[in-house]
């Protein structure tokens, strides 16, 4: 502990320590950023007629994960093709990654999963580096975060958004398969009692009230145009305060009475399970672009893997309506099943595997 003497040497040692610290911290940051990326889920907007894209399988309106998908048949020709399916690091993504992986296995592929890659930036880099074959991405996230579109430029129709994103991906040697029926978006959520107290139904209703209310969201929300920045810019709202919190706490802060408003996701299972407690405000100016999930893969992999690759993925996701996705999210987030179990239950209930 004698630091007093030999100052130059000490300074050098400290400098090295500081650099090591800096590297350590940024490494930690990378890890935790993954949790915040969950919010990107919200980027994707929702509403539209998305069910029609899934088109061909008429049987699949699927209530509880459930109706008739065609059973996937294993093609022996696929056995020599190895695929690694990735995902970002929050439950919904992991469930999707597992669904795709298990479906591809059922189709005879030598498929494995590499989930929890972190934020979309990390996932995309991993894909481009060839370490994964593909991963599910929200079309709106791709358009805003990767291709620089303003939220208002994101087409509201799922097919148009997918086509636009796909055109951009193709320039990068990638390709995106057709979108899922369900879509996910950020939403301004609050306790039902608060909504009744101020008579709030839409985000526009916050005008004149928001100065009295605190808004909690993921740290990145503050600057994002599909979050706080958008609420300020397009709705002209000013809040009493914005507080950043871990995405996991988005309901806790409401329950604790700390937050008047909290940024939630439309696919949150809690919204369905506790609809008498939590409500979301209608995004009447379409500031939060809704995103259907598109499976992004490299053109090279898609070519080598043959036609079953695309067909399996587009078939198996056709039963994923908002209701089904919420139910699957609930299995993982509320009932503590693993994404793997939830995915297997879906595939079986929907009849894709026996």
């Amino acid at each position, binding site marked *: 502990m004698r630091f007093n003497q030999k100052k130059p040497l000490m300074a050098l040692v400290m400098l090295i320590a500081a650099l090591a610290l800096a590297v350590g911290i940024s490494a930690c940051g990378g890890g935790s950023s993954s949790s*915040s990326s969950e919010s990107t889920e919200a980027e994707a907007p929702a509403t539209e007629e998305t069910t029609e894209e899934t088109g061909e399988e008429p049987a699949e309106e699927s209530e509880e994960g459930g109706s008739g998908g065609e059973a996937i048949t294993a093609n022996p020709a696929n056995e020599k093709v190895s695929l690694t399916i990735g995902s970002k690091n929050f439950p919904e993504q992991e469930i999707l990654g597992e669904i795709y992986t298990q479906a591809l296995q059922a189709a005879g592929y030598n498929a494995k999963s590499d989930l929890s890659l972190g934020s979309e930036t990390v996932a995309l880099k991993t894909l481009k580096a060839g370490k994964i074959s593909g991963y599910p991405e929200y079309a709106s996230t791709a358009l805003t975060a990767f291709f620089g579109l303003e939220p208002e430029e994101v087409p509201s129709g799922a097919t148009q958004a997918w086509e636009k994103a796909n055109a951009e991906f193709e320039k990068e040697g990638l390709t995106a398969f057709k979108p899922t029926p369900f879509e996910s978006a950020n939403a301004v959520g609050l306790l039902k009692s608060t909504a009744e107290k101020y008579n709030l139904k839409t985000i526009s209703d916050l005008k004149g009230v928001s100065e009295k209310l605190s808004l909690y969201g993921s*740290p990145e929300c503050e600057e994002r145009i599909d979050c706080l920045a958008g609420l300020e810019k397009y709705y002209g709202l000013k809040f009493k305060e914005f507080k950043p919190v871990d995405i996991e*706490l988005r309901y806790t802060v409401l329950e604790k009475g700390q937050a008047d408003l909290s940024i939630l996701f439309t696919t949150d299972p809690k919204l369905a399970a506790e609809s008498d407690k939590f409500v979301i405000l209608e995004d009447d100016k379409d500031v939060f672009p809704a995103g259907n999930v598109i499976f992004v893969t490299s053109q090279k992999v898609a070519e080598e893997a043959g036609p079953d690759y695309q067909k399996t993925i587009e078939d198996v996701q056709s039963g994923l309506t908002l209701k089904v996705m919420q139910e699957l999210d609930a299995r993982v987030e509320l009932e503590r099943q693993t994404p793997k179990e939830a995915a297997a239950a879906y595939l079986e209930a929907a009849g894709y595997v026996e």
Partner: protein
Amino acid sequence: MSALALHPLTAGFGGAVEFIFHKQVSNVTGGHKVGGFEQVLELALRQIEVSVVALAIAIVVALPIGLYFGHKGTGEALAIGLGNATRAVPELAAIALVAAVVGVGFWPLVAVLSLLGIPPILTNAFTGIRQVDRPTVDAARGIGMTEPELLRKVEMPMAVPSIMGGIRTASINIIATATIAPLAGVLTLGNFIINENVYGANGVLAGAIVVAVIALIFEFALAGMQRQLTSRGLRLQAQ
């Protein structure tokens, strides 16, 4: 576009320095720029604020306990055990727990951070006092010093290097961990590090650099303080 072209390794040091002094374009903010000196300074000050408060609380709590038990020569299991036990609690888990029970915000965060600073201060104060040369203490007692005098005039001065070592370790722990504060309601420099989506690789590196600089400043300040507190005799001995 830019996010696709950006790679953390190629972004480099220059980009991070640029981020600290000039606002930059981000592709998720709808046009308004992020970073720049004003924002960096604001977050840095907040990081320093929570760190100083947490460190002060840790010292106020841990130092008297460590000194007392060190002087009494008892409670070793308690002092060391408590120190080690709290060290085993992962801060993220602690923050999540506190958030679930108390809530998020400045004070819950400070509570967790000071919890992090307590073990090194407590353990070092205890062992520092225990390791003071026993014959010296006995001699002091022999010339008629009271127990409080013994602690203040003999044991504490001789234990300064160890005590300050504990405080310095605690300060580094606290400053480094304060980067996760944006997950608990307080915007610190960790905001740049956590949100690569918004601030880019430049922001991540800039955040890390500024945190490291703050840690260095604290380290030097505490080292200077230690030098002031160390008695002349000990300093000569150290040479």
